[in-house]
């Protein structure tokens, strides 16, 4: 479906939803919809990002297939979300990467793997690459090089992400951030952190992967997100150790980087595996087929980040520090490089939509 067609389809469906309103207890989308009679492009891109694709309004819809109205809000909104990513990303031409995201994520990951694999042994020598080092993987690539490399990429990604978010923020008509009350922001962030709208409305959970409500999707999302945060905390504490206290790695089992990193890696791996499993099991009408590549690529990338990081921690017992490190670094590099151009951005679009919702509800 082309953007115009998706917008048109969303308008058609919302006319029906607005006359029905049975779903208003499930999530924020329907109360937000009810305050509008007409739907402009900006309204649709806002509502689409407010939708968590929980499936409740599809499985509970009396007008879903095979009814002639063919109402499918989650699928239409998933398609619209992707179109909003393409539309507001900066610079514009990079939207192409979001259009065929599965391909690009794979390509970038494989390329960074090849480059690291070829360059590292050449730069440090075959023997160092495959050897065992008393200072762990820093013996393979020095701490300074890693910090410089990932620092540059990370900061650039952050800037691009910020510009894209400002574009979306303005497009849906939100006033400047500093004019919004803290209370509104707090509520929106809390609903994002708890993924409130995967609870189905009464805590029964969402109808994903099938019509029986379940909380597993929300649990797997929590494992993924908080696993990711723990891994991030591990890296950050390691940096603090290094720069503030001049403690050099590798760190012992009872140090913060390990205490964050090991549960984080495990949590991230399980969470991503769970999300992939649910996606595989999900009733096909819930999935916008053109988004599947983007979704799966991102979950795989995140899951691999956790899993390879975890493996690296056990390098002492398995050997091959060099290759293991390279695989992990390549995956993380791909995650960093594509942060503004992958499903990673859904979190930011979602938060902005939630802020808009809380602001409207005031």
């Amino acid at each position, binding site marked *: 479906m082309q953007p115009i067609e998706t917008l048109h389809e969303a308008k058609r469906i919302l*006319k*029906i939803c*607005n*006359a*029905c*309103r*049975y*779903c*208003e*207890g*499930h999530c924020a989308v329907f109360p937000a919809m009810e305050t509008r*009679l007409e739907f402009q492009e900006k309204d649709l891109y806002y509502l689409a990002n407010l939708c968590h694709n929980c499936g*409740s*309004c599809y*499985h*509970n*819809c*009396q*007008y879903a*297939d*095979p*009814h*002639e*109205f063919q109402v499918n809000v989650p699928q239409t909104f998933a398609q619209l979300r992707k179109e909003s990513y393409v539309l507001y990303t900066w610079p514009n031409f990079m939207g192409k990467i979001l259009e065929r995201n599965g391909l690009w994520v794979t390509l970038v990951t494989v390329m960074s793997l090849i480059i690291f694999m070829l360059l590292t042994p050449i730069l440090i020598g075959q023997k160092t690459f495959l050897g065992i080092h008393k200072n762990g993987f820093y013996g393979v690539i020095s701490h300074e090089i890693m910090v410089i490399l990932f620092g540059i990429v990370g900061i650039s990604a952050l800037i691009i992400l910020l510009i894209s978010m400002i574009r979306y923020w303005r497009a849906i008509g939100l006033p400047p951030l500093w004019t919004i009350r803290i209370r509104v922001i707090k509520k929106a962030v809390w609903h994002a952190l708890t993924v409130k709208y995967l609870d*189905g*409305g*009464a805590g*029964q959970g969402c*109808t994903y992967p099938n*019509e*029986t*409500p379940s909380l597993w999707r929300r649990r797997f999302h929590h494992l993924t997100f908080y696993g990711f945060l723990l891994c991030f905390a591990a890296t950050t504490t390691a940096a603090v150790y290094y720069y503030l206290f001049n403690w050099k790695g590798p760190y012992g089992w009872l140090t913060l980087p390990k205490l964050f990193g090991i549960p984080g890696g495990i949590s991230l791996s399980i969470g991503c595996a769970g999300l992939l499993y649910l996606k595989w099991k999900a009733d096909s009408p819930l999935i916008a087929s053109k988004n599947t590549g983007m979704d799966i690529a991102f979950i795989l990338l995140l899951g691999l980040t956790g899993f390879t990081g975890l493996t690296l921690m056990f390098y002492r017992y398995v050997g091959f520090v060099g290759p293991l490190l390279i695989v992990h670094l390549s995956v993380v590099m791909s995650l960093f490089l594509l942060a503004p151009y992958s499903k990673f951005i859904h979190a930011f679009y979602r938060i902005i939509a939630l802020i808009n919702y809380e602001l409207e509800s005031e």
Partner: protein
Amino acid sequence: MHNDVLVIGGGHAGLTAAITAAENGAKVLLLEASPKNMRGGNSRHTRDLRIMHHQPTKVLTDIYPAKEYWDDLVRVTNGQTNKHLAYLTIRNSANNVKWLQQHGVCFQPPLKGTLQLGRTNAFLLGGGKAMINALYHSAELLGVQIRYDSTVTMLTLDENHFVEAILENGQTIEASALIVASGGFEANREWLEKIWGKIAKNFIIRGTPYNRGLILKQLLEKGAKQVGNPKQCHAVAIDGCAPLFDGGIVSRVDCITLGIVVNKHAKRFYDEGEDLWPKRYAIWGHLVAQQPDQIAYVIIDAKSEKMFIPSAFPPKTANTLLELAQKIAIDPDALLKTVHEYNASIQPGTFNHTKLDNCHTQNLAINKTHWARTIDTPPFKAYLLRPGITFTYLGVTVNDKAQIIMADDQPSKNIFAAGEIMAGNVLAEGYLAGTGLTIGAVFGRIAGKEAAQYATN
């Protein structure tokens, strides 16, 4: 393979009966006429249950005592109700929310919405289909065998005693007890035509196409005692652009009290402002059914915009009444005359749509007694209206064990009924929002328990 209990009909009443029978130790088979993705009959389109309660709950505000419930029932039915069964329903309605919650159904907090039902009615989270999905899941967990695409065409009775059911494909199914929960006959056009004549061709069926009344017909032919008048049906004036079946809630047109309603000759035919809309919408189906071609148009102007929940279908819109008349193909002169006469007869008043205000017309053959405002501000809008049948009242008589009563006034020992097929015992005419599901819930539980007891003893 022997079944203790056979349930015909997989809507809310049938599922409630099947689940209760299974919980009482019976081996249950449930037959649903529709395919899986259209299961649940008219329960798919429902949203709320009317519940007696003596204190506020998480899903109901204030109180709704039995006496008030009974008074409401007598008022809407003009006394066409069985007091014993009605009180049985009212008293047991208090258990409905808890029972449904125990079987995976969720409710939402009381609504502040347009119909002001948050006090008397508990609203299903996600509507009827969410409830149906939860009950099917619950039934499956209890080992109830469910078969879709299974229409029963014939029942074999032996002296008022159920013996076997014969399916469309010729297969016979025996069971010790039978629970019929197969709904009314509102989707059976031939039957409707037999009662209403040719005008029934222009009726829209708001719900499932599977309520053809085959079981109801069988039982009445085989000596079940009838309840209710065949001509009684719940008919609403709905959007004429709605599909022939299954249009459900989105076909409602909520702006009749705000404008005027004319027939195809551009003549008004009833007081649009007689009473508050929730108290009047159920009469408009019959009113429109009596008009030529069974159509009418609500006409509103820009002043009424945003004062009602929009229908799913776009109205005809024009900047002049002349253009509007052309768009809906009625005589422009006649329409202009009707509107001018109406506008000229409006008395000064203060408009308030939330109560019976003093805006009315004077000296018209048919006055509009409230909310009468001039129709003069473009754009003008016209919604096409047709009669939409929600359900029928004709049914089988039951006793307080949900056993159906036969012509000799004796109950059948092993045939039980629940839901729309017996709702006429409690509500034989008129309409009280949320009573249908309540009757289904109460008699579903009674039928399930009694049938299981009979079958397993």
